[in-house]
């Protein structure tokens, strides 16, 4: 019986290891210095939302990230240390530049960044009713809608 349990535990461990390899292979999250990643971002609040892109680069074992809206206006700059699971907010767009907003953002982004390598793309802050969605950007397609000229 003991042998059977040990045997099963061994296969479970192997299975989890292979699954984790598979997760790393599927994700675009930066895992080594020089890696870059791009995500479509949407942050939904009760009555409004912010959307745009999050561009990431891993440098000196820290991930540097910038969130810009679709028009190219910078909304947020931050760093994430995956070893310490720490987010540092560097810059926040004008009206969001308040200490209490930055505090919430820091805490939530720590969870978002922890989740992304596990392919968990959404995170909900139930206390403040904020939903974060980070989906890898598909840069291969042109999604033009062509309008007919009269």
């Amino acid at each position, binding site marked *: 019986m003991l042998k059977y349990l040990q045997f099963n535990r061994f296969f479970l461990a192997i299975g989890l290891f292979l699954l984790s390899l598979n997760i790393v292979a599927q994700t675009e999250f930066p895992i080594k210095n020089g890696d870059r990643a791009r995500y479509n971002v949407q942050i939904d609040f009760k009555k409004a939302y912010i959307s745009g*892109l999050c561009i990431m680069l891993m440098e000196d074992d820290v991930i540097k990230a910038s969130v810009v809206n679709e028009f190219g206006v910078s909304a947020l700059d931050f760093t994430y240390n995956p070893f310490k699971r720490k987010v540092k907010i560097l810059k926040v767009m004008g009206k969001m530049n308040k200490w209490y907003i930055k505090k919430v953002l820091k805490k939530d982004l720590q969870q978002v960044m922890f989740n992304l390598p596990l392919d968990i793309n959404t995170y909900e802050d139930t206390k403040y009713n904020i939903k974060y969605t980070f989906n890898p950007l598909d840069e291969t397609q042109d*999604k033009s809608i062509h309008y007919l*000229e*009269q």
Partner: protein
Amino acid sequence: MLPLSLMAQNKNTQKIVEQIGNAAQSMKSMQCDFTQTKHLKMLNDNMVSKGKMYYQQTNKLHWEYTSPYTYTFILNDTKVLLKKGTRNDVIDVNQNKMFKEIARMMMNSVVGKCLSDTKSFKTSIAETSTEYVATLLPQKKDLKQMWTKLILHFDSKQLMVTKVEMHEKNGDYTIIELQNTQTNKKIDAKVFAIQ
């Protein structure tokens, strides 16, 4: 009293602003493709996006990103429609000061009307053999928060905007280049439909 060279420069700037203003007035519609390059200093990276733009006098603008993401901004008089995926949001610009500013800025930059917006910008113009290069320094607090300067490039023959540069405090900048520009062609009304 202003030095003579500065007076001449001011006079020249005034003349060019007037020329561009007249051209903008006579332009009933405009459509083009655009390429937007956002340079992120912190990441030493460029984010390039492409799209289509349609403008119709006096208050209609369709600004659509088609690659690598889709996002559409349609201004039709006082209403703005934002399309992102399946989500459509309609905003009344009169109820939202920030959107009123964004809509006004986008439209005025595209046709060059912001050169004469002296309340928002201090303008100077340089001239090359093929283009006028207008440097606009924001004067309003909210504009100063977003940009240190805007640079508009005009084709000096057609008096139309060919490139817009937006520079931010942290060294980031965005360049929008307009291509395949067509003017005064009829544009389907559904391009500006808010629904």
